[in-house]
């Protein structure tokens, strides 16, 4: 590495022996003719940087200003996609309390789908048992995670119909 490096932010020394200082930073822009790298060297340097925990590199010298910054992939903890968060989110299942035929579609329109956010008391479907319709409603606000039975499917007592997670 040629001299002119004035900011590196990162952890322990990289492969070139450069060590990050406490208050040093690097940016991702490159300005001016590249007196520091040719394209091959730049690519090699970027690959090298990727293998370290350096997140910013800035170099400036005689009109050449290079800033290289690693993009954050975002925090995992606390995100909606987090398995940890999923586990904490309460779920419940609605089971059939009768034997019959499960219906999800009324007048060719599905009453609900996976992913729907439903309010407490929302009608989700019904089970026809000897001509008597047993309504299936959401017990509390939530998002439909799974629907376990097809429209017009046979259901038995205790069979899972819906899984809903709290929102």
């Amino acid at each position, binding site marked *: 590495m040629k001299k002119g490096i004035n900011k590196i932010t990162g952890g322990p020394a990289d492969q070139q022996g450069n060590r990050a200082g406490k208050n040093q930073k690097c940016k991702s822009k490159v300005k001016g003719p590249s007196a520091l790298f040719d394209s091959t060297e730049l690519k090699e340097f970027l690959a090298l940087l990727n293998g370290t925990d350096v997140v910013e590199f800035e170099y400036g010298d005689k009109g050449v200003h290079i800033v290289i910054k690693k993009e954050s992939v975002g925090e995992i903890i606390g995100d909606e996609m987090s398995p940890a968060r999923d586990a904490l989110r309460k779920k419940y299942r609605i089971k059939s309390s*009768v034997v019959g035929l499960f219906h999800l579609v009324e007048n060719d329109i599905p009453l609900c789908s996976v992913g729907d956010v439903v309010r407490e008391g929302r009608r989700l479907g019904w089970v026809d048992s*000897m001509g*008597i319709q047993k309504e299936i409603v959401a017990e509390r606000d939530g998002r439909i995670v799974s629907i376990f039975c097809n429209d017009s499917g*046979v259901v038995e*007592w*205790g069979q899972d119909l819906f899984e809903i997670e709290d929102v």
Partner: protein
Amino acid sequence: MFKRVLVANRGEIAVRIIRALKEMSIESVVVYSEADRDSMPCDMADDKICVGPAAAASSYMNISQIISAALVKKCDAIHPGYGFLAEDPHFAEICESYGVNFIGPSTEAISLAGKKAEMIEVVKKKKIPVVPGSHSVCSDVESAKKAAARIKYPVIIKATAGGGGKGMRRADKEKELARAFEITRSEAEKAFSNSDVYIEKFLDSPRHIEIQIAADREGRMVYFPERDCSIQRNHQKVLEESPSPKISKKLRRKLGEAAIRIAKAIKYTTIGTVEFLVSKNDFYFMEMNARIQVEHPITELVSDIDLVKLQVALAAGEKLSLRQDEIEVFCHSIECRINSEDENFIPSAGRISRIVLPGGSGVRVDTAVRQNSEISPYYDSMIAKLITYGRDRPEAILKMKRALNELRIEGIRTNIDLHKKILENENFCRGCYSTGFIANMKEEVR
């Protein structure tokens, strides 16, 4: 013939029915409660459907769920087994209204057979003796007292909708009557949803003799050799045998002909049983049971006939091709009801940790339990029927003793030892016993 039958029962009788259906190439769909999810009938049937939680009232006796199960599984018939809804005329009627065949007699016949007091009137008109009694429902304690005074004590108070030994109480004198009356009414209401009771003379040391009959829709009927069901505990049968050691051929014919006349009077079809009390050569009509009975295997072995297959065929409208002169006594058979109960007859629940079933010549076991079966407190305590048959009564007894010694059920209490004592009892071996046998043996048993 039926294509697919819903088996609306559990345990050994469900297994029995499924086996018969398989041999008839009829598909079986068994209902089950949550408690029976891992049961043998569920493994054996072609299909299964859960109809409710463990409690029988919410599952096996839940008419709407049973009917719904038959409809969604496209069954064209329902076999009710015994107990539960087997003799519920309301259930049979609903089956009919939804176009599902009920494997049993007509709604009218079931209804009439279930009304004990009315059946007594029918039987009296046929000049067949009945046990002295009120012959009608006693609506209150006062009318019961009047009837009992006329009949003379001891008397027995019986639920008109009762059966299987349930819904009965004895009263030896008037001051016992009021309490026995109220308890019987209360038990009848809980067990049969019908609190009607009537009073009968309590006969001392009679034999309980029953006649199996079969009938088609065109009125052809036959009767089978009698079953002696006198070995009872609290009016519930413990051991049965066929033929009875103390019934002559002449009395057998009289009983059989009486049973046919009674069945014809109520236009009975498929199979059923007429029960009598016999004292020396006198017999009295007791009740009619419009179902397959627990003890049917001994008749099957004695007469070499498959009664369940016959029942299904008759329910499907087939003609009864069997003639009375073709029905013979081919052997002697004994059945021991193996119950999960302790020496005080208290039901014992738990997991069967080990089971060894007897086998060999002349031995049959009807059961639905196996290793790790969970015996729950929700259902009847009978877990198996051990049946033997031999050329004569001594041989059948010998085989039963051997089979009882081979039988091992561990993890729960059973009445196997009681049966061993019965089979060793000298009076039993001589055939000299009556309905008071076990009560007399009680101290010895304990």
